[in-house]
């Protein structure tokens, strides 16, 4: 819906409401492999930001190290960004977004980056609830180092050099639900529309919004039987619902029979409409999410959509009682206490 209207709005001009063209959201030419899932996700980030009329200058991009983590170079040229260290992005993001809470954080990581070397930081990041869109481009391998198994590779999965993976995969969404993350979604790079709508939802969410996106590595892990391949994704994807972000400003009559959709109101007043596609599922029920994920796992099913949402948790900045203004914008007089206060302290140390 919002999509259609958006496109209508932009169809004529080619510009969005803040007068930017889609080009203003693009990045540099990708150096990733042709057909890499990461590239399609980058395009959806571009599309989502464009359609949401976001100012690229008010976004910061963050990433670790990996093919996935390179992608911030391939979208949003007009945004500042930090391509940091392998597995450490959550720490850099925490410092950055606490220092300047006015900026909108979009982070891209890989399954190796997040579930192997970065697992601890990832979980503590969720625990603090730092407002940011956290995208894991999940392909079950280490792409940039030429295809070793990552911790999300399924047991029994085969790749060229290393043979068969004997270990059970780490379920990133399950962990996120566990760490009480307020926005937990799973998607598939082969389903661009869903990726885009979930991105929009995440971008409107206040708190950590986790997107675990299956993003096939066409070079090292795209065999049909791999649970991280395009074929497997296409044949096993089971979308929970049709996600649409309904911006406040638009007056839209959503015509469903009752119970056919869930509406979730976010802090900025926008609504998430989740039109059910399968058995009754309540994305505000943590236990349900837990159950769904472990069933999906045993059923070998790629359940996608917004698995769990709870907009009512304090962000780290709120928890710490920070000023609304970015700490980086404070004046010298606000940062340096006055002379009298120091004299007072010196007195106390006599």
């Amino acid at each position, binding site marked *: 819906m919002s999509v259609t209207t958006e496109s209508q709005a932009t169809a004529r001009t080619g510009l969005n409401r803040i007068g930017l063209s889609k080009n203003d959201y693009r990045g540099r030419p990708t150096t990733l492999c042709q057909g890499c899932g990461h590239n399609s996700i980058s395009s959806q980030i571009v599309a989502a930001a464009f359609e949401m009329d976001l100012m690229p200058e008010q976004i910061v991009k963050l990433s670790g190290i990996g093919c996935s983590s390179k992608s911030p170079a391939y979208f949003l040229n007009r945004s500042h960004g930090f391509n940091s260290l392998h597995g450490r992005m959550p720490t850099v993001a925490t410092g*950055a977004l606490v220092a300047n809470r006015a900026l909108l954080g979009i982070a891209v990581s890989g399954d190796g980056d997040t579930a192997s070397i970065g697992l601890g930081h990832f979980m503590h990041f969720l625990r*603090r609830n730092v407002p940011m869109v956290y995208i894991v481009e999940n392909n079950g391998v280490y792409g940039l180092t030429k295809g070793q198994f990552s911790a999300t590779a399924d047991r029994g999965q085969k790749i060229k050099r290393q043979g068969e993976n004997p270990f059970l995969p780490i379920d990133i969404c399950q962990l996120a639900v566990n760490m009480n993350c307020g926005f937990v979604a799973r998607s598939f790079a082969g389903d661009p529309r869903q990726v885009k709508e979930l991105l929009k939802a995440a971008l409107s969410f206040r708190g950590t919004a986790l997107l675990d996106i299956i993003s096939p590595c066409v070079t090292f892990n795209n065999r049909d039987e791999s649970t991280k391949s395009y074929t497997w994704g296409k044949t096993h994807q089971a979308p929970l619902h049709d996600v649409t972000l309904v911006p406040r400003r638009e007056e839209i009559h959503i015509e469903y029979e009752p119970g056919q959709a869930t509406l979730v109101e976010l802090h900025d007043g926008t609504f998430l409409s989740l039109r059910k596609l399968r058995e009754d599922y309540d994305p505000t029920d943590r236990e349900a999410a837990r159950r769904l994920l472990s069933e999906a796992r045993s059923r070998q099913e790629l359940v996608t959509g917004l698995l769990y949402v709870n907009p009512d948790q304090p962000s780290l900045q709120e928890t710490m009682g*920070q000023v609304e203004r970015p*700490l980086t914008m404070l004046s010298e007089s606000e940062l340096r206490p006055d002379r009298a206060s*120091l004299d007072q*302290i010196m007195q106390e140390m006599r």
Partner: protein
Amino acid sequence: MSQQPVIDPALAEATSASPIVNRFSIVAATVNGSGSQTSNTAIIRALFRMGIPVSGKNLFPSNIQGLPTWFTIRVNEDGCVAREDSAELLIGINPETFLQDVAEVPPGGVCFYPDHFTEGLDRTDVVYYPMPVQQLLRELDPPKELREYIANMVYVGVVAEILGIELPEIREALLTHFQGKAKAVDSNMAMVEAAAAWARSSLVKRDRYRVERIDKTAGMILVDGNTAAALGAIYGGVGFAAWYPITPASSLAEALQDYLPRLRRMPESGKATYAVVQAEDELAAIGMAVGAGWMGARAMTSTSGPGVSLMAEFAGLAFFAEIPIVVWDVQRMGPSTGLPTRTSQGDLMFVRYLGHGDTKHVILLPGSPRECFEFGWKAFDLAERLQTPVFVLTDLDIGMNLWMSEPFDYPEEPMDRGKVLTAADLERLGTFARYRDVDGDGIPYRTLPGNEHPLSAHLVRGTGHDENAFYTERPDAWERNMERLWRKMETARGHVPGPIIDSTPGAEIGLIYFGSTDLAVREARQTLAGEGIPTSGLRLRAVPFQEEVEAFIEAHRQVFVIEMNTDGQMRQLLQVEFPRQAARLQSLRKNDGLPLTASWIVAGLRHRSE
């Protein structure tokens, strides 16, 4: 007092000799976790408030409760308050170590002990004073939960009475300690006074040691370096601090948490103009600081050896991506987990090259809590001016012990936020490249996220980059960038605090040192001068070094580098930076976990000076 042995003539003679005033050390041998800290700080602060120069050094175990702890107070009219090898007066209340403790009292010394002790009381060359701890407790009968703490006040009272410490000053000291909580002060003072009264009536002074009010501490303060560092950071406008607990650095971050709410909230809203995050580990702590520093906040972290090891990768990133952050390393004894509660200067070499592949860092070396405060804010100016991590190396001795200090000077200069371009600047300039050396000093200009000018945005990275921060593998681009970073490190020489040089005309011996050994070296130089061995002193305050340092080395026939580590790391750094002097540098080092003593330095130099 039956156990009191007959006093031997030597002692009688000694004790009847002229009194020793304001010139001795006294050690309290206690058990940690028993609250004796309150008693010890009460004594030292009272002495300090009587105008007598003091220092307090706490030798504590790496556990929480039940092990031996020694708190040594040195009082010295001339301000020589470095650690001494032995203390003339013992407050021996730890039964486990009492025999050992008594054995270490020098002849003519004094021993205060709880009167229920039965052993170790047979030295004839020591004056013993029993203390009726149990009896006084029975009489005063404090609330059960306070009993143990109040018990420790007995020795405060007795010692005060015997040495002449003024009780009103003890009360003042307790007021400071309990931040004005009258109730706590009263219940403790009650015992102090009872004990003093008992001593007055029951003990005869038979030793030579006394204190007298003088006026050598007017306007001064008593403070530890970690608190000073935290205050320095606060008055330097710290915006973001991340940390992970570790001895002996924890109290630095905790001091931030104690003082920030009081000093850095918005008047109206009461909202915080800072953020302090306890991270999940040190990798995260420095990572968060890097994120905040990148954004443009004044960002810091504080840790000790093991944490520094974990920060290596981020240190290299911050150096190479040129992100300003400040890292405090309150050094403890290493390698590895080593001795968490012992002091050392052993991280120097490691920190200088922290990070693989040609990484180098600027290091500041405060020599006192006062400099901790000063470098606390200067470090931010330097980091932002140079766009590089600035490491500040102190140690457990400066960081956690009580030092007498001139009060801290309020920063006079405005903050130096370095080469940051606003949207207006970009508009004016019409061009911008994050890593271009516009001024030839190796320091590029930066824009901060949030700057909405079209020229502002770029992608910061730890990978090879050209002037525009774009990834490149071009050999020439890599070399150009590394040459610029080299230039920047040369520029740093001109910005970091220079050495403090005290040249003695005609002195042929030069002493190079740094950090917490300052007092010991100064005292040693006085003694040597007295023995007709004049020396010049140079206290390094930063790496990289300035030419003056080489000049100083050249100017002296013999040059000793004094430090507290096993490898002679400062000497090694000097060898690297001044190859022509390398052969002339002699190493005088000790690394046993205790602060250096003047007497050790004197002994070392006496037989090595030619």
